[in-house]
């Protein structure tokens, strides 16, 4: 879900009806933007029942309240929209050995699962941030960082997550930032509260993947703020986890609305429900609007 009001640039014919826009975007070729020419809020939503994603929902199935005020939403299907997947991987000293092998295997599996039109970037970090490549469709450029990784140093989780979010934010497509870390932040320069606040303004969805028992509060908060999830796994399950996150992300849909009858600035609490169903809805809890500085 957006953390900010997005000024969406005109790209498609703005005279299309909302319904038609949804249909066009669902089949949009890569490079097209989600555009309407008006200020809009976007809410990335995962609806599930009994642990399985619910498909076939329409805008009429949703109730979205912005600071308690019911909004009129449109639904943007995403089955075929391009993804920007940013894999942020901890390469600090504690990852050395078997854990690195599991990570490399999982990373290769994730890249293989992407569709040709999807773009990906990899950011490695210890206390040092190292980008494997910018968002690209060239998988070989992405693999070198994983293949050449030599874990060493401290963990700057907050710095790396921020950089991952910035890499993922793009005019095109939807951004999934997957942050893997086996430790807690010990070396970041950026303050965690400010990075969390930026997350409330961003459209990216962050999924945290941590090692069992590490209790990474920051990643937990970041995942919750962005409507993602924190998964606590054994490193032997990394491959399955990476793929499960990607598959889950593809099942999400995007709601969009132009806020009505709510003041512009500050924190907007969001309440997203599916009418008439006992479904679980995962979406960001709200968004920040206006310039905080």
């Amino acid at each position, binding site marked *: 879900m957006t953390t*900010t009001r997005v000024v969406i640039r005109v790209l498609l014919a703005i005279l299309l009806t909302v319904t038609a826009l949804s249909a066009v975007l669902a089949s949009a070729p890569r490079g097209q933007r989600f555009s309407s020419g008006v200020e809009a809020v976007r809410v990335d939503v995962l609806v599930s029942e009994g642990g399985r994603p619910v498909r076939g929902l329409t805008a009429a199935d949703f109730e979205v309240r912005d600071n308690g005020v019911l909004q009129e939403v449109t639904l943007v299907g995403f089955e075929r929209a391009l993804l920007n997947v940013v894999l942020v991987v901890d390469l*600090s*000293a*504690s990852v050395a050995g078997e854990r690195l092998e599991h990570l490399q295997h999982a990373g290769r599996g994730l890249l293989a699962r992407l569709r040709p039109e999807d773009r990906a970037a990899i950011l490695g970090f*210890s*206390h*040092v*941030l*190292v*980008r494997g490549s*910018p968002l690209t469709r060239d998988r070989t450029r992405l693999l070198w960082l994983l293949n050449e990784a030599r874990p*060493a*140093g*401290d*963990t700057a989780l907050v*710095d790396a997550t*921020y*950089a991952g979010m*910035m*890499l993922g*934010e793009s005019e095109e497509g939807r951004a999934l930032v997957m942050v893997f870390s*086996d*430790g*807690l*932040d*010990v*070396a*970041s*320069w*950026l303050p*965690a509260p*400010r*990075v969390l*606040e*930026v997350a409330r*303004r961003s459209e990216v969805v962050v999924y945290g993947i941590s090692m069992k028992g*590490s*209790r990474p*509060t920051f990643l937990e908060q970041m995942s919750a703020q962005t409507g993602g999830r924190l998964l606590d796994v054994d490193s032997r399950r990394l491959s399955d986890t990476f793929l499960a996150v990607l598959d889950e992300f593809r099942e999400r849909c995007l709601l969009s609305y132009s806020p009505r009858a709510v003041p512009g600035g500050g924190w907007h609490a969001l309440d997203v429900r599916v009418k008439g169903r006992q479904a679980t809805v995962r979406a960001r809890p709200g968004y920040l609007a206006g*310039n*905080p*500085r």
Partner: protein
Amino acid sequence: MSCVRRLVLLTGTFALAATPLPAGPDDAREKLSALGRWLAAVEEHVPGQRDAALERIARWKNRDLDAIASYLSILAELLPEPANTRIGARYGVAEAEIAPLREIARSDAARGDVNRMMKRGALLHADIMMSGAGAAERIGERAARREVRGGGRIAVLGLDGQHEGFALIPHHWQIARRLLDAVHPDPSSDAFVRLWYAATTAFMLRRGLWGDAERQLRHARERLTPDAGVHLDSGCVYEAYAMPRVQSMIAAGPPGVRYDVQPLEANLRLAEMHFTQATVLDPTLVEARVRLARVRTLIGRAAEAVPELERASVASSDALVRYYAVLFLGQAHEALGHDEEARAAYQRAAALYPTSQSPHLSLSLLAREADDRGAAQFALRHFLDTVSAQPVRFDPWWVYHLGRGRTLPQLLARLWTALPPTVRQ
């Protein structure tokens, strides 16, 4: 990047009532024999070397070191006054046990340096710890609890902000400090003693042995004449205690462990107090001023920090300290809402160390917070495209937590060259 696993050492206890262990058998002959072996090792050891003498004493357990501690106290009193006859009664020790110690004291007096044995002994124990030969012995939680029940404290180890285990605190540092306490006539202003404290504390800071450093600095503040360096190091320890590398570890620690670390705000106040003291004792110590200003920004007094950092950013002859000054100047301006000034400061920092990462992150964050996504991405991408591709990168922020541990090689070199000839041989 170093490949060393960066362990952090704090000290602590469990929430248990202390029940002192029963004292061991008082075998004077065995203790005297141990003292003899210790004295031989002290004579044989070449300062700064990991030699056979060092290895022999490094294998001693804490109880072995404790066994000779009372004799070392007697020796310390005899060195300046070998003929002292009151000492046996005071320590409850028979003259037969004291005689060998009296002989050593006479021999050193004849060499013209009554402190020789004390200083060589302190060097031996420091070398044991700094060479890695005397690293803290890992113990399980049950043994750690047993140690605490006996009235002791334990080392709590962390890695990557997470609990890594427990260890016994070796008594080598304690013995070394005790030996230096006995330096005659007054250790508090002895140049060698002060250098020993500076160098060994730098080692502790460099290795993240915060618990050891805090105990050592507390001792130094009690025993040495007021020293700006000691207060700078003390402030660094409390500043580190307030950083995520320690706070994360405490938050993730096992239940029941009581760390010898105060809450974050209290640590910042302690850091401020010691940095202030350091600047009073030595107004030219720019690093203390910079650190003081950073701490003041963190406790909400950024307006006081700005002029201090402005001055420091041009006053220091050390490029690292100038970098810290402008980096923290950016932070202070941000806290005051002066975004333009903050941006300028971060740009200065980036220019001082072109491969640094922190100023670029701040420039990006500033732009993103102002909802200028393009500028935020440009700042970050520019950094990632240019700097992150460099084979050798250095951001002084990465070593800020080391304090004077950054200058350990220089301090050790000064210590070795300052050894009096009588101590060196």
